[in-house]
């Protein structure tokens, strides 16, 4: 039984990280969103900077989430810049 979550990246985040979506195995559960960001940030400077930016939004299961959100396997996480539709 895997501990995968799916992660989506949108707009300039997808371009700069060169990734639109991926499956990511959680090290342990429970894992907080803050912990996930730390793990992803270890991939390099670009990841560290973009995920650390105050303007970067995060959604868990398609709803805006805060750093203390608890992730469980099967969850859908998304990172994106401030929205610009309309």
């Amino acid at each position, binding site marked *: 039984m895997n501990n995968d979550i799916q992660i989506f990246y949108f707009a300039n985040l997808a371009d700069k990280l060169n990734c639109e979506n991926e499956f990511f195995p959680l090290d342990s559960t429970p894992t907080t969103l803050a912990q996930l960001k730390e793990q992803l940030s270890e991939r390099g400077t670009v990841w560290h900077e973009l995920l650390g930016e105050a303007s970067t939004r995060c959604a868990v299961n*398609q*709803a805006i989430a805060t750093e203390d959100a608890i992730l469980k396997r099967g969850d859908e996480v*998304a990172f*994106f*810049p401030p*929205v*610009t*539709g*309309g």
Partner: protein
Amino acid sequence: MISVQTEDFQLEREYQRLIARDGAGAVVTFIGRVRDFASGDKTFLLQHYPGMTEKVLERIEQEAKARWSIIASTIIHRVGSLNIHDQIVFVGVSSKHRRDAFAACEYMIDILKTQAPFWKKEGQHWVEAKDSDQAAADAWLNADSWQALEKD
């Protein structure tokens, strides 16, 4: 009614839908269109987050219905490749009295602009969010807090 679609929409048809039910004495519509932008490359792209987008638009519509007396409402947002002057977004509201239709229509586009996960790309450049859009949304949300306080 909400719709996220690549196809264009037609104002007259949306208007007829909004007045299909009795009592629609007032109808307010908003249409947003692609303006010309400074870039040699005139491609225009609208990306969105499928699934979340629909949820957010539905919530916005429900919030408007809870706040104002609305007969019918519509939010349509296009995605994909668009051209300059193309229609991007339609928000329409019918109501008995005009005050409700104006407020609900402006509320829905203001909240959509800051909460619905769409991103515009002009040429090779992702458009940046505007402080004025956040301010417009905050004005509605602060008005909410006021009303909440008054009810205490």
